[in-house]
């Protein structure tokens, strides 16, 4: 547990001091929204509000990819990754620390992007903010568990920026499908379909546990 807290604290403090990742993720995801505006017939307006939940998750995945690519590449400087691997505890705790840091950094970006979506697509958030936050948190938990895990792998490959999406998108699709389904349900009917919630919980559980156990084979110095 102390390793978890130490890794989390270190990542958040270094992010707070540089603000590199948050700014890059935010600017990039806002650019993605602008691209949507020009890609959609009718633009990013209320006319396309029914597409907004799916597009919102596309923007979230792009933002997450950008941030997750940095999650372990920052550890390559001064070979800090070797020190992480040498920590005399189960490496699963290092994973959890990294996972939580990525989750919180992505969460900060997600809030701003959701507000921008609400403005452009004129989405009505009244009365559904807690449910929406819950779905985003569950979706992000899946996104960050798979992402943090494969980020540690991708950082040890050539073309690491390309390798991460190739590795993480196929296992991520169940999480993404369920999150989109849940968000659509929330905006159209005001409630979350139970099937999508179940899938989100099960997928998050499986990926978090598998990553915790298998991280031992992935992190190396």
């Amino acid at each position, binding site marked *: 547990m102390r390793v978890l807290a130490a890794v989390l604290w270190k990542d958040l403090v270094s992010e707070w001091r540089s603000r590199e990742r948050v700014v890059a993720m935010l600017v990039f995801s806002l650019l993605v929204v602008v691209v949507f505006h020009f890609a959609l017939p009718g633009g990013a307006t209320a006319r396309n509000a029914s597409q907004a939940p799916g597009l919102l998750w596309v923007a979230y995945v792009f933002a997450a990819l950008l941030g997750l690519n940095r999650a372990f590449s920052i550890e390559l400087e001064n070979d800090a990754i070797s020190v992480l691997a040498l920590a005399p505890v189960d490496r699963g705790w290092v994973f959890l620390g990294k996972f939580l840091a990525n989750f919180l950094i992505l969460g900060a970006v997600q809030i701003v992007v959701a507000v921008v979506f609400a403005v452009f697509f004129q989405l009505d958030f009244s009365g559904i903010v807690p449910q929406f936050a819950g779905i985003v948190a569950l979706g992000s938990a899946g996104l960050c568990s798979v992402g943090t895990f494969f980020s540690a*792998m991708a950082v*040890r*490959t050539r*073309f690491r920026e390309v390798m991460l999406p190739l590795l993480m998108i*196929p*296992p991520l699709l169940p999480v993404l499908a*369920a999150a989109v*389904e849940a968000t659509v349900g929330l905006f159209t009917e005001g409630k979350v379909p139970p099937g999508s919630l179940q899938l989100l919980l099960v997928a998050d559980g499986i990926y978090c546990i598998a990553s915790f156990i*298998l991280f031992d084979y*992935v992190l190396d110095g």
Partner: protein
Amino acid sequence: MTTAHANPSPGRALRVSGWILLALGLAFAILVYSAPIDSMQGVIQKILYVHVPSAFAAYLGFAITALFGILYLWRGEVRYDQVAHSSAEVGVVFCTLMIVSGPIWAKGTWGHWWVWDPRLTITLLLWFTYLAYLLLRSFTEGSERAARFAAVYGIVGVLEIPLNYYAIELFGEAAMHPDNLERDSLGDGMRWPFLISVLAGFAAFAYLLLLRVDLTRRRAILEEALLDD
């Protein structure tokens, strides 16, 4: 296994599987040629004899990859990894054959090249997963690390199958594939050609797998010899 390292000639298993494949291949050609033509779909229905055996061989390949990946992580012996890697490559070849032959059949019978049918979608995702597996292997630096990463990815590849299946069900895509291959679903005179084509598919898989494992071992021996020099 030590003899395979000492003498890198094709093993007996490879020769035997080669002869079996040749015999089954001949039987396959004759039986599929003489098999009755479907009254509804016409000659295009004969794609069945390539499409379904490819599917079985691809799924077998991916299962072997995951199993030998687990064995490699558990025992740490390189030979398990050689089988896992070879099986993934051969599996991807059969999966590609399945994905290419399917749309040709679909255009003729369903009227569309592609539909997002659950079985099709899951196979496409599997194909991407194992392409990523092979890319991961070739882009990872260090052979021990590549083997370890690939074994882990093979396990995740298996974990994602039920989740993806459930996700596709959630989207409520209409199933276009026939549910089963029970006796009644094949017309008169099609059972033997189908059975032989499935066996020929497995024989082709086994032969290619053994050939690929043999190649990997020879390559490892060569690399060792070059290092020694």
